[in-house]
């Protein structure tokens, strides 16, 4: 009974914590520009993140190590330093995008311009991490994040052509704007396969004191949680394809977001969007902030745990405080959160091999995972999807920035 409860809570928190500003923005933009055509990218990203999250949980449960911890040990400081710089840079861009998302939700709620919200949002993030435990952040915020299921309800209520939706789960070639299409696919893959997600998951497994007995539970949580989470992203895309695309509306600003739910829920649609975006981004911002601190502390062998007093882990606490300060800078100076989000997601895709390739080596290392090593199928799925994301990113990002098709 206890195990069933753990699985249920794990799935619920995975679903509630899945959606963040990257998934919302990339899915909305894909739906408005290419109707249902890019659903395959969400499906592909969803499959990959299921495998990566399952592997990260299995690795932590069996080896007692987090992923960054083991990368430093197995690949030495030079590679770790490279990975650290890349991941911290990408994570800071994504953190800035998430903080921008919370600020936009507050702008929609109050009418006060989003840069004014940057500092209050930073204080709230800091306060929750400072005073809260890992359980509060992981489960509390994720449970509130279940409000994002309103997108799924909305997508069902709007009666999309389900046959076309199902057909779009298979990749197809673009009919127009090739460069933008592939860039959109890259951004969706980056939003789905965020390294912070599975690095954070492995740290969480250590915080929750998982052991080998959790391998089965972890498999169910990863598969069900990430699948349902991807369904929410597909729902956002369906809504954008049904509402924006037929009118030729391009999704170019977050102020357009309420239009996704108002046609379905009326007045309440506006407030559901505000609450969904605000809560989802706040949760993601806290997780990314913590992940930057985890990555730093684990890599350098410092004391770390969100369950300890800040005084007992001063460097860990200082790391997340610095991350928050750097994360609010773009919002403070008024950088467009949507541009930052799309750019951050594409950048994530382009840098995926830096963290995924060493992780796959670890998942096949007997000294860490013993008999729980990856099978050929798990390795193949991750390598193929990461390869596709990387190649698409390298080809499409320059085209998107400098023009071309």
């Amino acid at each position, binding site marked *: 009974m206890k195990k069933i409860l753990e699985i249920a809570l794990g799935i619920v928190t995975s679903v509630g914590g899945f959606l963040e500003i990257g998934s919302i923005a990339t899915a909305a933009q894909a739906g408005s520009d290419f109707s249902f055509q890019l659903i395959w990218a969400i499906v592909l990203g969803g499959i990959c993140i299921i495998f990566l999250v399952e592997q990260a949980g299995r690795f932590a449960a069996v*080896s007692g*190590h987090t992923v960054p*911890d083991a990368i*430093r*040990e197995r690949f*030495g*400081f*030079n590679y*770790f*330093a490279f990975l650290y710089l890349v991941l911290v840079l990408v994570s800071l861009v994504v953190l800035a995008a998430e903080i921008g998302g919370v600020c936009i939700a507050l702008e929609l709620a109050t009418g006060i311009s989003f840069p004014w919200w940057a500092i209050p949002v930073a204080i709230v993030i800091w306060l929750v991490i*400072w*005073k809260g435990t890992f359980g509060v952040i992981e489960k509390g915020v994720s449970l509130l994040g279940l409000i994002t299921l309103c997108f799924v309800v909305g997508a069902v209520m709007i009666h999309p052509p389900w046959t076309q939706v199902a057909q779009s789960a298979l990749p197809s070639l673009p009919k127009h704007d090739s460069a933008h299409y592939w860039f959109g696919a890259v951004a969706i893959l980056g939003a789905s396969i965020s390294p912070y997600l599975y690095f954070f998951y492995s740290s969480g497994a250590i915080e929750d004191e998982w052991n080998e007995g959790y391998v089965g539970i972890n498999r169910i949580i990863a598969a069900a949680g990430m699948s349902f989470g991807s369904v929410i992203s597909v729902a956002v895309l369906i809504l954008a394809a049904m509402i924006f695309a037929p009118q030729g509306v391009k999704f170019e600003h977050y102020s357009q977001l309420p239009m996704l739910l108002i046609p379905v829920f009326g007045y309440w649609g506006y407030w559901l969007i505000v609450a969904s975006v605000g809560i989802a981004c706040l949760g993601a911002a806290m997780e990314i902030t913590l992940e930057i601190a985890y990555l730093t502390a684990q890599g*350098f*062998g*410092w*004391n*770390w745990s969100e369950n300890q*007093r*800040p*005084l007992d882990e*001063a*460097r860990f*606490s*200082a790391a997340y405080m610095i991350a928050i300060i750097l994360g609010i800078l773009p919002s403070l100076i008024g950088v467009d959160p949507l541009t930052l989000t799309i750019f951050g997601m594409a950048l994530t895709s382009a840098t995926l091999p830096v963290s995924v390739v060493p992780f796959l080596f670890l998942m096949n290392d007997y*000294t*860490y995972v013993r008999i729980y090593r990856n099978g050929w199928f798990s390795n193949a799925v991750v390598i193929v999807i990461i390869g596709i994301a990387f190649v698409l990113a390298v080809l499409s990002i320059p085209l998107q920035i400098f023009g071309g098709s």
Partner: protein
Amino acid sequence: MDLMRDCLDKLLEDSAKRRMGRVDGIILDIEDGRQPHVAYVEVGVKTLLNRVSTRLANVVARWLRKVGIPTDPYRIAWGKVRVGLNKVEADVEAEKTPALEWELWLRKKVIGRIPGA
């Protein structure tokens, strides 16, 4: 024992199992006519950066010294070290060593002054 595989970069814990960093460097004692033997393990930012680039290590060390932060690596005699599975244990008390200098400075000067720490 393979020093690179079993000791370098492994988590370093003190006698009370408190994390005190990682094994950033290993010092070998080499004398004429004798086999080299391990003398110390080192912990410190300069040792770490030396592994990336000596020039970078010198620049960072000079800058840290300018702002009053000591950069000499902390050495633990090999005799006080026990290499375990994916970790290294040192027979020292972490808080009394320079390995936790930054941690203690931050605790006293910054984090400890914030309410609720």
